[in-house]
């Protein structure tokens, strides 16, 4: 196995562990040296980078064993460790995929990346005897972006662990003759869920097997994890940042995709209507890059129930939605006097940054989360930053944020329709 470790529970990985000094004799984990623990610590802090394969697998085991033995499978520490490992692995998968995309798109490369999780076969090969299925498959994914096109088949029994996390539904997948046919994006998602299931299983078992007193040397690692677990969000954010510089690409671990809601410009608040008509020099940057970008993106993608610090890719899987949002923003930028992007082309990248795509200047769903997806600022902040934008109407008095202006109007519109019918 001369490749990056993606699944520390794969048969190859287990073989390596078996031959390591860790399990060579009965003392097992007590053979771990202090300096190894130190190295694990550094390895986690760096986001799991720059490690030789064998050592890498060993570090995963030490981390998981520590959790299993000292904290148990339902602890916040185990949740944190699971998140850390998921993050490390999705970072690696993301990196491998972007490398695979650098040259000609080669399905075999993608297949080999995921071979540590499943035996992936090209859908066309599996369906070669059924022209009907092949044609339908093509039609089903014709309007999708490359990473969402259904191309790969996995045997169902290989995805059952992912199903058991309750995060993946059979009904989301295309199932024919014992195989789920999925896209590259699905492969990432399903691998990470499978990994999560394997970790849970390991922690459940590990907790029962070993005696807790055999491994005093793990104490420093335990203390460290306890400290992180008391503030996991901050810790994970730091790790994310570090990993961004280390791998420069990340994949998403998304929820079920909803696709957002079509915009209804009639319900926009006055400040946004004003910006869409074009604003003049002085408040251009703030209006377009900060306010309009955040407002239009949330209004289109998640007008109701969006969470702070979320990623666009948690809500949509269709890049066309981003294109739609960008075209509205760019049009409004063009109506400014002078047109914003003419004299400040750099603002284009800034807009993407505010949507959460980082500073790559590229729009790909994997990039979502490389920067913060900015939530629309509150009204009082807008009045402070760009007083000329605020032209209150009756409804404005009841809300504190332009997005809630929009979302409450959507609600009351629905109610009105209901009332009229009654």
């Amino acid at each position: 196995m001369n490749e990056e470790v993606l699944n520390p529970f794969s048969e190859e990985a287990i073989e390596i562990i078996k031959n390591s000094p860790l399990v060579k004799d009965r003392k097992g984990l007590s053979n771990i040296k202090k300096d190894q623990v130190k190295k694990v610590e550094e390895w986690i802090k760096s986001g799991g980078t720059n490690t030789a394969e064998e050592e890498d697998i060993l570090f995963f085991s030490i981390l998981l064993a520590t959790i299993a033995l000292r904290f148990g499978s339902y602890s916040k520490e185990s949740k944190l460790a699971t998140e850390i490992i998921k993050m490390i692995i999705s970072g690696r998968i993301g990196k491998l995929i972007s490398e695979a995309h650098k040259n000609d798109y080669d399905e075999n490369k993608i297949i080999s990346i995921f071979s540590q999780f499943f035996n992936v076969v090209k859908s066309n090969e599996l369906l070669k005897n059924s022209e009907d299925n092949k044609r339908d498959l093509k039609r089903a994914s014709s309007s999708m972006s490359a990473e969402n096109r259904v191309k790969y088949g996995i045997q169902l029994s290989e995805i059952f662990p992912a199903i058991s996390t309750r995060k993946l539904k059979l009904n989301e997948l295309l199932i024919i003759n014992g195989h789920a046919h999925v896209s590259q994006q699905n492969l990432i998602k399903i691998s990470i869920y499978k990994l999560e299931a394997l970790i849970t299983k390991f922690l459940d078992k590990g907790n029962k097997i070993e005696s807790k007193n055999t491994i005093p040397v793990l104490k420093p690692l335990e203390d460290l994890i306890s400290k992180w677990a008391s503030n996991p969000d901050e810790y994970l954010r730091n790790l994310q940042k570090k990993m961004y510089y280390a791998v420069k690409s990340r994949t998403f671990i998304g929820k079920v995709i909803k696709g957002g809601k079509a915009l209804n410009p009639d319900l926009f608040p006055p400040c946004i209507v004003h910006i869409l008509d074009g604003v003049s020099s002085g408040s251009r940057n703030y209006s377009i890059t900060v306010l309009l970008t955040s407002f239009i993106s949330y209004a289109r993608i998640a007008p109701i129930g969006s969470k702070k610090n979320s990623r666009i890719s948690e809500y949509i899987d269709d890049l066309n939605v981003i294109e739609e949002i960008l075209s509205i923003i760019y049009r409004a930028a063009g109506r400014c006097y002078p047109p914003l992007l003419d004299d400040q082309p750099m603002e284009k990248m800034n807009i993407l940054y505010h949507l959460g795509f980082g500073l790559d200047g590229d729009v790909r769903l994997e990039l979502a989360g490389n920067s913060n997806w900015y939530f629309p600022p509150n009204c009082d902040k807008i009045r402070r930053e760009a007083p000329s934008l605020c032209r209150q109407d009756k409804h404005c008095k009841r809300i504190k944020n332009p997005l809630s202006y929009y979302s409450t109007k959507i609600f009351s519109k629905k109610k009105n329709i209901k009332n009229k019918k009654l």
Partner: protein
Amino acid sequence: MECHKIVEFLKASWEERKQYYTEEWDMTNVPNFILTTLKDREFGFDHNGNGPRDRYNEFNSPQDLKNFLQKRCPFATYTSVSLYENPKKRKNWIKAELVFDIDAKDLPVKNCDCKGGEVCESCLSDSKELLMLTADVLKGDLGLKKINFIYSGRGYHIRVLDEGIMKENSVVRGEILDYVSGSVLPEGIQWKWNNGFPPIFKKRAKKFMKMLSEEKMSEIKNINGTKASKVKEKMDLIIREFENGDLSTLKKILKSKGTESFLENLRMYNASILDGKVTIDVKRILRLPSSLHSAVSMKCMEVKKIEKFNPLKDAVPKFVKERNI
């Protein structure tokens, strides 16, 4: 349609049970998949018609089972779908069959005059049709091969023994149930696939659309009697359109709200064909094929040729035939 209650579903007496187990019952009628794993299964018995209170039994050989059945002539006999290292304590679970249960008395829509809880020939044949649709999905979509049909006495069981599925937990089984029953309208890809509706949903919904009476339809929210009779009149056309993911005639009659309720009801019918509790329970006990369903005096039996099977001929014990003479 009028109900043809060919067999009167009467309780079997102690003497009849005795006659059944000594004269008619035969070891060869116990399915092979149970005989070969007999020692690993838990057995449960209902001795007086009050439910399977006598549980945690195990049998070391088919002969032991035979002796027990002939001596006690239980009102009902059950065996676990699960295998254990220690079945007597229900400990060290090894694996379990994937099972589906269709109860003819609980069909959500009936073609006959039977009320909920009653069964006639028509209910039984509708159940068989739905059973075969379910088996098609298990084979064609999920690629399962070891599928066994059991007539339970008043409905059907499907028992799947593919190795790849027997170790799976309730969560996975629940997902399979949702998929197989067409009870969840999927998001994403499947909607585009097959013209708008997933094939399973379509097949089952079609069956129910044919069965729906005007009366039953007018009970659906947002659908009144006039609309229901219009839909019934145009049902053939509506079904043809539905096959292609087209709802235009339906929408013309029912408007969008009525159509929504109509589809929601179809989804609900799909969901209620199979008894979900049975599928997700990995320690369930089911009637032992070959045993007597004493409440209705019918045999619970393995069905090898499901297409030709007619419970009202093939699952009637001798003593019932003699009753009528």
